[in-house]
């Protein structure tokens, strides 16, 4: 006969849940609306989602304010944990989503967006991600991970093409395997320490001085497998290119950013304490994984014939590049991670959106795939502005100064240098050089080749509507004038990261 549990509400500190709950409420609202009146226009849902995302942003800002005053916030039986990383990650997640949602407003109708469920799932997914980043409880991370993943599988499948389904199935199956890895890893740590809260695990392990190192390593391995899968680190990356190709360009762009930042935060929470407490093995492993991911992905990207697939590989390579920050594990590197990802988010979203607006419903003969290189041949003659913007994004991805991503690379490599990882820094630099080639390839096609057959540039902007143009314009402006914003952003990030002790 247990006594009734009595807990005071304020001790629960429910406010910490607000940021996650808002999108979930939004999702439910959408579903309810759909119940009462179906086949409403997608614009409605888009707007509702945007409103809720804005509210979400507000909530996050509020938590940020509190964090600034009173440091890390625990809540709900110490399950929730709002620190700098959580806030930054959520900002990126919600911000990127704000850029993504309006992409639904395409010119030609793609029927995934005509379902209200699409938006509901989308918001659920956000909630999942936010849970993941805002806790150090493995259960909650697991739950968040799966919620978001399952939603994501469905979103991909909703694109409703053969390739889309294939992608979804592949992603799903491998995701299930990854889930197995994660739970097993969590189990091992639970077995070792009797706790599933990362900081407690850390304390226990340090107390017993990593007595059974072997099992720690096993657990780490499994978690690395699971996280590596979501972060598409080689050799767990194999899903990425197919899924990116199968899903719509917009979704692909979204996938290349939001899930990964969430997982990066998890990785930071999980691995950095291990590295700092001298698990050299993990350091070596990460070193190898990072280098292999960067290099191999680059090399595969070289040989792609389809721009979207190339971008998929390039995102893998970028992920590897950023994973180095977790390996280095200094404040500078962790700040570099967030800086890089912010810059990467709108550059990459911009690039994918450019593909998105050039999406044809039916494939012309001379194209092997939706976005094959030769589709863009001679684009500058037919659609100069679009070509210039696309070229801009490519240069930025290649790390040509002064465009956005250059500053990320700069700070990241610098952090490697000051972290003492000389060779790593060189490898990162050389990889950027290799990457230069395939970004250049697209520029070459757009600016230096002659069009294959179609002389009208309409195909490249067939989907363009004002919202899309706005977003792309925003991304382009951000890419060009990033250097103005670098300083405040960097200071903000560094402050938060430092304050939360990373």
């Amino acid at each position, binding site marked *: 006969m247990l006594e009734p549990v009595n807990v005071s509400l304020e001790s629960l500190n429910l406010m910490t849940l607000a940021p996650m709950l808002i999108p979930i409420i939004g999702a439910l609202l959408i579903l309810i609306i759909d119940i009462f009146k179906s086949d409403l226009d997608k614009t409605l849902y888009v707007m509702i989602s945007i409103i809720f995302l804005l509210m979400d942003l507000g909530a996050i800002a509020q938590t940020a304010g509190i964090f600034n005053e009173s440091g890390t916030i625990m809540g709900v039986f110490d399950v929730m944990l709002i620190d700098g990383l959580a806030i930054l990650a959520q900002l990126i997640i919600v911000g990127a989503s704000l850029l993504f949602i309006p992409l639904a407003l395409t010119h030609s109708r793609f029927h995934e967006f005509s379902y209200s469920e699409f938006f509901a799932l989308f918001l659920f997914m956000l909630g999942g991600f936010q849970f993941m980043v805002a806790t150090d409880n493995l259960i909650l991370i697991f739950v968040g991970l799966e919620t978001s993943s399952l939603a994501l599988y469905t979103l991909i499948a909703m694109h409703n093409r053969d390739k889309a389904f294939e992608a979804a199935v592949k992603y799903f199956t491998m995701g299930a395997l990854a889930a*197995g890895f994660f739970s097993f890893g969590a189990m091992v740590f639970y077995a070792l320490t009797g706790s599933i809260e990362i900081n407690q695990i850390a304390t226990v392990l340090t107390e017993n001085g990593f007595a059974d190192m072997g099992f720690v390593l096993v657990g780490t391995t499994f978690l690395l497998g699971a996280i590596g899968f979501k972060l598409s680190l080689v050799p767990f990356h194999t899903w990425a290119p197919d899924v990116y190709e199968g899903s719509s360009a917009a979704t692909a762009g979204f996938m290349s950013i939001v899930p990964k930042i969430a997982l990066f935060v998890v990785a930071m929470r999980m691995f950095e304490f291990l590295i700092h407490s001298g698990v050299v093995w993990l350091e070596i492993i990460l070193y190898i994984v990072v280098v292999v991911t960067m290099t191999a992905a680059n090399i595969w990207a070289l040989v792609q014939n389809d721009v979207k697939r190339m971008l998929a590989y390039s995102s893998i390579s970028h992920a590897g590049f950023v994973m180095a920050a977790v390996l280095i594990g200094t404040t500078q590197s962790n700040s570099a991670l967030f800086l890089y990802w912010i810059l990467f988010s709108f550059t990459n979203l911009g690039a994918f959106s450019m593909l998105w607006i050039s999406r044809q419903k039916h494939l012309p003969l001379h194209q092997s795939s939706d976005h094959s290189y030769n589709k863009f041949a001679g684009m500058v003659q037919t659609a100069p502005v679009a070509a210039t913007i696309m070229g801009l994004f490519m240069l930025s991805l290649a790390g040509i100064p002064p465009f956005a991503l250059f500053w990320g690379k700069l700070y990241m490599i610098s952090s490697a240098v000051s972290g003492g990882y000389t060779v790593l820094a060189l490898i990162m630099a050389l990889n950027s050089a290799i990457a230069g080639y395939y970004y250049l390839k697209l520029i070459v096609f757009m600016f230096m080749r002659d069009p294959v057959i179609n002389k009208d540039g309409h195909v490249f902007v067939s989907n363009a509507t004002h919202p899309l143009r706005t977003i792309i314009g925003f991304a382009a402006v951000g890419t060009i004038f990033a250097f103005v914003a670098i300083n405040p952003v960097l200071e903000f990030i560094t402050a938060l990261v430092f304050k939360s002790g990373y």
Partner: protein
Amino acid sequence: MEIGLNHYLVLSTILFSIGLVGVMRRKNLLMLFFATEILLNSVNISFAAISHFYGDLTGQMFAFFVIAIAASEVAVGLGLLIVWHKRHNAIDLDLMSTMKG
């Protein structure tokens, strides 16, 4: 003899390995899903055992969540599977390789 924690752990490990092998060998999508279920449930066993060993409920909580998630995974998975079957009326993995390289 007394059944101790290690036996459960060994059992779950064995199950997990079986699951892994299944995941690798199975060409039938449905069977693949079963294999993944085995994976998750093997973990559940050990969670339960460990939580009993430590005498706190966290592990069992985790187990419950795992079960729930497994269930929802099946839901999504089967949905996808059915759609796929409708389109190709086959659930053989080797058919799914239009995207490669």
